[in-house]
């Protein structure tokens, strides 16, 4: 079924549901009022009854009935007037017209109010869910949730993952290990739980998921650098100023508070760069490093999915050719043109030198990175972050004073639970480096780890190894285009210019649709 047909069909059905559901499903609340109570009603109460119950039924002592569409009570309270129909006790019509009815002959009055049924509210909710998923996945298929296994701290995280594993490993040949900072400390002897989910249309092939517990002093913080070496940071200093293209952004960058600094992509070239200027009060005497907590925007995810879309039904064959090295990429690949976050430090002559680069990818979870600064011998307090516009979301930047290297304690899961039951087979797969655990969309595993009982505090990191295979969505196949795919490989700059207007159309809603299209219940 084509996109247009599906949109049309779904629109028609959802319209039927909304219109039909609103008009049909009502409940009736009836009230019987005796004559004495009716006579005691104030004008306000009568008006309120008229609003909620447009028809008044006047049951006579004889068994006859008047059904009045427009009615009012005379001020003396002795009669009711109105227009409607007069029926016999056998419910034969006696007369239609206007009536003046003496209260003395009335047995009781009856009112009926119509209310919306609660069932309609339920249907409305389901309609909303379907409409949201449909809108997200059909109108903007490249915003559908994707990217690698997600990790949540059991009992704490519900909506946002704490970490994402091996995001760049999109094929078997790209299998890699990934260390992610969980930004969480555990106490000695604690039984710590991680929830690993497959929330996307992907097959995840997981070699292992180990916990790295890094012991530290109570007043410090453990951080990992790009080499996978752990350091104890005794002092974290927020910048005194931070300026991006939008002006002052210090408030967004000073604390880890989920308020992220990000910008919009350039409308004519997606590789266009921007700079954030940072200034710190003073540089530590030695072992200075820059700590950055960040994640990517969905720009790179969009481009990856666009490449898959261009591969279309031939995606499998394309992957095989890439894995065999049969496709020569331009030196300036899209990956290189987008780049990571380049950290520049001012040298003694006023120029700028590259101190390091953050090149770990993933749009789901904020990860913390460490870039060493002091090996350049500069005493400048100014640092620049250079990156592609609209490609990064930065939560926190701080200057760290590193005191010493520390060795983590590697912990394997002692228990793996799937559903509600222990899953010994899955645990064995995760412990055996020659075998892998394969997960499918919707799978959730609970991994339990025993924290060592030495009397220190442990900062926790998760190390995952594996790769994942994206499922090619139906919507993507319709965009199959080998020429454009070739352009992404051979002339990436032109591709980034050509795709810019296309991306700008969906950029604002990418995050919104992305997070609402994941495939597990919260």
């Amino acid at each position: 079924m084509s996109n247009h047909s599906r949109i049309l069909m779904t629109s028609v059905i959802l319209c039927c549901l909304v219109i039909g559901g609103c008009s049909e499903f009502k409940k009736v609340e009836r009230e019987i009022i005796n004559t004495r109570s009716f006579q005691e009603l104030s004008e306000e109460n009568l008006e309120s009854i008229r609003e909620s119950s447009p028809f008044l039924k006047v049951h006579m002592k004889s068994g006859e009935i008047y059904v009045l569409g427009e009615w009012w009570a005379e001020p003396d309270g002795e009669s009711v007037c109105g227009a409607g129909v007069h029926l016999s006790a056998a419910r034969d019509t006696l007369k239609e017209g206007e009536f003046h009815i003496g209260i003395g002959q009335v047995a009781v009055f009856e009112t009926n109010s119509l209310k919306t049924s609660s069932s309609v509210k339920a249907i409305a909710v389901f309609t909303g869910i379907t409409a949201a998923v449909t809108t997200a996945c059909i109108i903007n298929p490249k915003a559908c949730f994707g990217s690698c296994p997600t990790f949540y701290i059991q009992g704490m995280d519900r909506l946002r993952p704490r970490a994402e594993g091996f995001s760049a490993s999109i094929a078997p040949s790209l299998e890699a290990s990934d260390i992610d900072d969980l930004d969480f400390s555990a106490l000695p002897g604690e039984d710590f739980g991680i929830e690993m989910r497959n929330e996307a249309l992907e097959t995840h092939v997981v070699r292992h998921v180990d916990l790295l517990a890094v012991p530290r002093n109570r007043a410090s913080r453990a951080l990992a650098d790009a080499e996978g070496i752990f350091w104890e940071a005794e002092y974290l200093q927020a910048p005194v100023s931070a300026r991006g293209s939008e002006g002052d952004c210090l408030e967004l960058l000073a604390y880890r508070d989920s308020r992220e600094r990000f910008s919009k992509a350039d409308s004519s070239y997606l590789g266009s760069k921007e700079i954030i200027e940072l200034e710190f009060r003073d540089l530590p005497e030695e072992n200075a490093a820059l700590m950055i907590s960040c994640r990517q925007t969905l720009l790179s995810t969009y481009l990856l999915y666009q490449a898959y879309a261009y591969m279309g039904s031939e995606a499998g064959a394309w992957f095989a050719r890439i894995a065999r090295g049969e496709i020569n990429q331009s030196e300036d690949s899209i990956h290189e043109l987008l780049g990571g976050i380049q950290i520049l430090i001012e040298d003694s002559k006023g120029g700028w030198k590259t101190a390091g680069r953050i090149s770990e990818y993933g749009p789901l979870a904020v990860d913390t990175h460490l870039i060493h600064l002091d090996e350049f011998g500069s005493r400048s307090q100014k640092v620049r972050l250079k990156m592609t516009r609209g490609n990064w979301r930065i939560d926190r930047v701080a200057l760290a004073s590193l005191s010493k290297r520390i060795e983590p304690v590697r912990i394997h899961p002692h228990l793996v639970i799937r559903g509600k039951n222990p899953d010994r087979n899955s645990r064995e797969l995760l412990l055996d480096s020659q075998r892998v655990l394969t997960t499918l969309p919707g799978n959730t595993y609970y991994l339990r780890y025993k924290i060592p009982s030495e009397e220190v505090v442990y900062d926790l990191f998760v190390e995952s190894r594996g790769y994942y295979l994206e499922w090619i969505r139906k919507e993507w196949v319709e965009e199959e285009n080998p020429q454009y795919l070739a352009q992404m490989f051979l002339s990436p700059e032109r591709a980034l210019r050509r795709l810019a207007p296309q991306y700008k159309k969906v950029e604002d809603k990418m995050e919104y649709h992305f997070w609402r299209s994941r495939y597990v219940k919260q």
Partner: protein
Amino acid sequence: MSNSRIISPVSVSLLCLFLLCCSASHAPRGWLPNPDEVPFRAQGGWVQITRTSGPDLGGELIAIGRDTVYLADEEFHVVSKADVISARLARYDSNAGDLGGYAFLGTVSTISNGFVLIFTAPVWIVGGLTAMGFQHNMPLITCEICDFSKLSPYARFPAGLPDGINRSQIRMSPGGI
């Protein structure tokens, strides 16, 4: 499994429930008013009475007396309250069957969700069936050890059977009045 192979058994299940709901009321088809018609229709609800003596009786609830329940189908019936084991009153047509139809449409619409239908379709099925059950029961009043005062507001004569009325002329309303 393809989307259509998932949806097909769902369709059959919902269709069965749709038919079940349609047949759940003992009132003649089309006799009960829609909720929108209740404010101007002058008839009692449909009551089904299980008695200690004799077969079940069903008909328009005419009135509740001190010791008796009055109802009418093609004839006028007087049932002693002491003879009633249980009574079930349908006040109006719940349209639960239509709701089943909407739930069916909703389930079908999840085809457009692609693979996500493995989550959205069950939401529609479970939620739709729950809503149907709720809607179906909404206009019903059931009493095992009967408190007949709950039923009287929905009788043709809520204040009781009028004095001096000619009982032989009282028949079930034809509906639509």
